[in-house]
């Protein structure tokens, strides 16, 4: 359900309508919503989607693996750094469902998130749509992208796995001092199991092992307590985040 305000089409730089549009995109990345509440300031899809589609296809054409339904987005590893952190992948939870199907929840930090799956998950938690090309770029250029996938293996049959993205969190970083966590979300049907906590803890662990000590996030009021329980402090020593708001005049 999207409560619509009509927003201007995708603006060229320095347009006066910048503020409103950027606001709708901005609000989503920044907030750690968990899909519990709908935003009441959602925007309609931007009108210039055709222009974006062209650049989107260009941008992922090179990364597309033809016989694979999943788009592989490379994690931003750099050659010059001495320690290469191998991406983690392991089974977090495994359980057998009543119908005999085995479900595994796999944690991975290699950034193998399909942008379409992510868009669908964002829809599921009620976030307004963001241009796919921007989502793809954001994933590609994040320092670490942690994902949770559920794999359901049918009992008895061979290779009949159903893989679904059910959670994600990502962090941008300068690889040395600072990191910011954005876009934390968990599929509503999988919430309440400690999966979000696992995502964040793993993310923090990855960052701290790399000696990245300034870890920041911007939390919606409903989830402040959640992050406090994980070791985050609100406005520590008076430090606050400020955001750029382009002036509409001049």
């Amino acid at each position: 359900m999207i409560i619509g305000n009509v927003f201007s089409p995708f603006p060229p730089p320095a347009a006066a309508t910048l503020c409103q549009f950027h606001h709708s995109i901005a609000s989503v990345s920044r907030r750690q919503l968990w899909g519990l509440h709908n935003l009441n300031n959602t925007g309609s899809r931007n009108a210039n989607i055709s222009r974006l589609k062209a650049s989107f296809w260009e941008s992922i054409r090179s990364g597309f693996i033809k016989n694979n339904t999943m788009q592989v987005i490379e994690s931003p590893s750099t050659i010059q750094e001495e320690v290469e952190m191998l991406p983690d992948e392991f089974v977090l939870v495994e359980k057998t469902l009543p119908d005999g199907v085995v479900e595994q929840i796999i944690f991975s930090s290699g950034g193998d998130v399909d942008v379409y799956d992510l868009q669908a998950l964002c829809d599921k938690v009620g976030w307004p749509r963001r241009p796919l090309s921007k989502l793809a770029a954001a994933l590609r250029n994040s320092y670490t992208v942690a994902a949770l996938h559920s794999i359901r293996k049918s009992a008895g049959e061979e290779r009949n796995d159903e893989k679904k993205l059910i959670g994600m969190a990502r962090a941008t970083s300068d690889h040395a001092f600072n990191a910011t966590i954005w876009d934390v979300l968990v599929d509503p049907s999988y919430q309440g199991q400690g999966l979000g906590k696992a995502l964040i803890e793993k993310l923090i662990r990855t960052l701290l092992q790399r000696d990245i000590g300034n870890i920041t996030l911007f939390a919606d009021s409903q989830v402040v307590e959640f992050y406090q329980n994980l070791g985050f402090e609100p406005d520590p020593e008076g430090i606050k985040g400020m955001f750029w708001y382009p002036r509409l005049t001049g």
Partner: protein
Amino acid sequence: MSENSGWRRKQIEMAVATTAAYGRYLPANFLHAPLKITNQSSSPPPPLYISTNPSDVNPRQLQDLYALCNHSCHRFPNLDSDGRVEPIDITKLRIALSHSPVVVSVFTKPEFANNFSTRTEVGAKSSGIGGDWIQRVMPVMPVMPDNGQLVGFGRAVSDLGLTASIYDVMVIPSLQGRGIGRRIVQRIIRMLTSKGVYDISALCSDKERLFFKACGFGEDILGSTTMMYTGTSSYSDADQMVIYAGRKLLLVPPLRE
């Protein structure tokens, strides 16, 4: 052109000719018009070169700039008895630079930057006999990164799609208050918006808040709470790994089964 400037031009032409004849020597009594003594508020603006090319930044120079500005990359730095932060790790600085998509650096001529700790001195130096007018009229080397002194800096980290964060904006104390910091932030913003990123954040201490407000930043209108990991969690474990970030001791979350 006023009459005054016509007379001045003649003076300049003679000076050029004289210098050409005598080399760099100028007789002290050559100058008839005493130059105006500048006071603190009207000290000459330094010639500035603003670069967005990361290779213009020399990490050692940058390390010095951090020290001059008493700026730390840790949000909760260790302070010594004089209130000075510890020197920044240059290896980490290099890494941080290479992963900051936007790097802005400001250079000026060394005499405008390094030799003066207050603005009064800058004014006084340039208003003596000779002053800097000769520099203004002679064909001079423009300030460039390789012949200039690094006096201002700012960088941003971004996913080049949705979000960005600005860090480490600084200007040496002797050149603060001239709008250089604001120009640095404006340049950063311009570079980010040209890449389609409009969600730009900056972490601010109390002091920095006014500065960023003047640059067009404000509190989150959606009312999100800024939170930082400080490692004090409700679960504590005896054998927990910790790392230091400045003076904060951060607990590393344990691996869970």
